[in-house]
């Protein structure tokens, strides 16, 4: 199968049912995408497949054949994506484990809805769990990245 991962063409010869998550982590060595639940319940593994946010843990790699995959490592060259910058400015992460997935979901949201309402933020981020409880800062950082005031 041929995948375009973070702008680079990659040939992978694996079980076509293998979830994209394990292809990224175990085969391609891209460990920024995290395993959290394996059932699309927590969002830690969120990546973009042709600009759509998908859960890599339930996406068989065959579905990515011939498509572009963007992971946290490819969201920007140097951490300069507005979402990444807002995340640092507001010191969103605590343990940091879920944050790659949160950032990828937020970036996909802002690509579609450049000025989302709080309800739209809650709806699009509902699939991303954070056990440390950084949700209020996540919401504020999305607003900041969108050029909105941080507080509603």
């Amino acid at each position, binding site marked *: 199968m041929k995948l375009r991962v973070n702008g680079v063409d990659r040939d992978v010869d694996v079980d076509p049912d293998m979830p994209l998550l394990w292809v990224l982590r175990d085969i391609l060595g891209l460990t920024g995408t*995290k395993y959290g639940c394996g059932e699309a319940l927590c969002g830690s593994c969120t990546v973009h497949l042709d600009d759509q946010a998908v859960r890599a843990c339930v996406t068989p790699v065959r579905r990515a054949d011939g498509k572009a995959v963007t992971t946290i490592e490819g969201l920007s060259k140097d951490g300069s994506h507005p979402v990444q910058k807002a995340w640092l400015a507001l010191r969103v992460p605590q343990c940091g484990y879920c944050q790659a997935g949160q950032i990828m979901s937020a970036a996909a949201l802002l690509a579609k809805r450049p000025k989302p309402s709080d309800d739209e933020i809650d709806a699009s981020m509902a699939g991303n769990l954070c056990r440390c409880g950084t949700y209020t800062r996540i919401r504020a950082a999305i607003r900041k990245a969108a050029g909105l005031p941080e507080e509603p």
Partner: protein
Amino acid sequence: MRITRRSFLAGLGAGLVISVRPLRAQPAAPVAAGFSPHVLVHIAADGTTTVVCHRSEMGQGVRSTIPILIADELGADPARVAVQQAQGDKKYGDQNTDGSSSIRKQFDQLRRAGATARTLLVAAAAKRWKVKPETCVAKNHQVVHPPTKRALGFGELVTAASKLPVPKPESIVLRPASELKRIAEPNLALLDGPEIVTGTATFGADIKLPDMLIAVIARPPVVGGKVARYDAKRALAIPGVKKIIEMPQAKPPWMFQPWGGIAVVADTTWAALRGRAALDITWDHGSNGTYNSPAMRDEMLASVRAPGTKLRDVGNIDEAFGKAAKTVEAEYLVPHLLHLPMEPLVAIARVANGKAEVWAPTQHPQAARKEVARILDTTEDNVAINVTLLGGGFGRKSKSDFIGEAAYLAKQVGVPIRVQWTREDDIRHDYYNAVSAQRLRAALDPTGKVTAWHHRTAFTPIASTFDPTADTPSLNELQQGVTDLVLAAPNVRAEACKATARTRIGWYRSVYNIFHAFAVGSFIDEIAHARGKDPRDTWLDVIGPAKQFSLADLGIAKLSNYGEPLDKHPVDAGRLRNVIERVTAAARWSDRKGRALGLAAHRSFVSYTAVVISVVPDAKRTMRIDEAWIAMDAGTVVNQERVHAQLEGSVVMGISNALYGGATMTRGATDQTNFRDAKIARIGDVPRRIHTQIVPSQAPPSGVGEPGVPPVAPAVANAIFALTGKRLREIPLARSL
């Protein structure tokens, strides 16, 4: 080894720092030439200062906090401070990142690390200038002699300083608090932030070693269960599966032992998971196969309806209840709670030539070292434990069962092994927080004043994980919100009642305080309504006037007080009142227009926290939590920014506990499987605004990571009562909404 560049502590001026983490092949960073006056501090000839972080980073910010504290005491420029993560080694002192203790217990000793280096650098400069050391100051990475305006950089002093005798710890003079300016900075940056947001931070599963294989393990679903039979052939037929290995059977007491079961070793995680699914195991569930949560609930309610062991006794409650104008009585239930760190357990081990090296997200690297040595039947000096970032811990990762599994398999297979737990494994094989039942009774006089307080608590003690005969909470365990409870009532009795553990019990963030604060915090609200008075006024009445409680006042022989002396960290009614007054002022307590408010407060980990939760009616569900206020008095605070973050997180975890908390058991096995039924708060469940407040204080530092959580659940229940009139006394609350 990984070397990265980044600016550290941007709030203090951007700079360059090299972070060295022993995450690759080398057992530790090579010892560079220079000056190492303390195990946590090294200064190179170019002035680069390396501070060792000996505690584990799991989101509380300790890798940002310890270095800034040492740097501040030393007088170092944070931009020239590199941070190195320690391996597990007794030479660092207590590394068990647990009990909200990193700053609370080590504030002075961390400062002494910086002060030792400073004392020697100052002595070296004074000697060179032939002046008195007292006339020199260390600041901005230099020793300065203000009268003559001379200065020497730390690097320039390294050679001379390293020849001086290291002063004894007791002779070290710490800076006055007024000189510690950096620790009080409101906006310190996150040390690992830039790597986290770019996906390059290294968590447990991100370590890859040459020839490494991946293992997943099918563990007995019931504690103490065994494999009766299984099909290795079917599993070995899966492409990529290399080996099937029987794990050693765990024997009571469970302690930190691996769990047993069958391991499938493969070249990818996916192949290992498929192999495990093909094992077709028949289990012998053993004697705990009779554990059912509904029966346990009945058993525990029966336990608190009969007298237990009296562990706190003041005055004469029987007489007071006999004279009561009114009696209030209620029972509260909290199930086993799950840790659910976002990073499932994982460990990597390599065993070769009699040496073992481990990489793991562990809260307790010294315990891991001991357990790996036990499993490999070797001595600890043959075991190296490298600590990665932890994707959450909450107490689960202080147990080293998962690390022992990796060491065992690496030895058996002869190549490095990563043991990967799935979310289902994490839920099924947790060290569950104790299941709890409580019965509370209060006697009121005709004015509504509480004249007697009677508390019975039953919970499965953690001690049972280490001693199977432990079936009743001990005096030490009751300090978490029972024997240390601040009460003005002249007659108080607390009793510990029996509860037999039939699964592994462990500590989970805030531990027994969660259910004690839930019961006490709900009960004080019930008293308020029974006497027809405002809950805030009732809280202040129940606590009574500002005073410090002696053991005699508390009616106990002993208070372990989280390992702190009572004169340093008293049980202080005034501080508890203060956080209540502050949080209710911030929340505009008297203004209930369009909202319902719930209040609770609690002392734990020698800190004081109060919480107000606001709930509003919601078109789609019974209610929505729309705003929260939390105020904490944690004494002297280092890194305020991370303390605010901990308070925000505590509110969210407290909401998760309250609304959704709980694991239940059927025939000894955990009913929950993944986040669909082991629920935690999602973004829409939490308030849009969380207002955090740190009480300014010069008191010794107390705990931060845990004490924010306990008052949240009762504040939620009290707010729900205020909105709906429904008193919810059993967690998870969402089941009754």
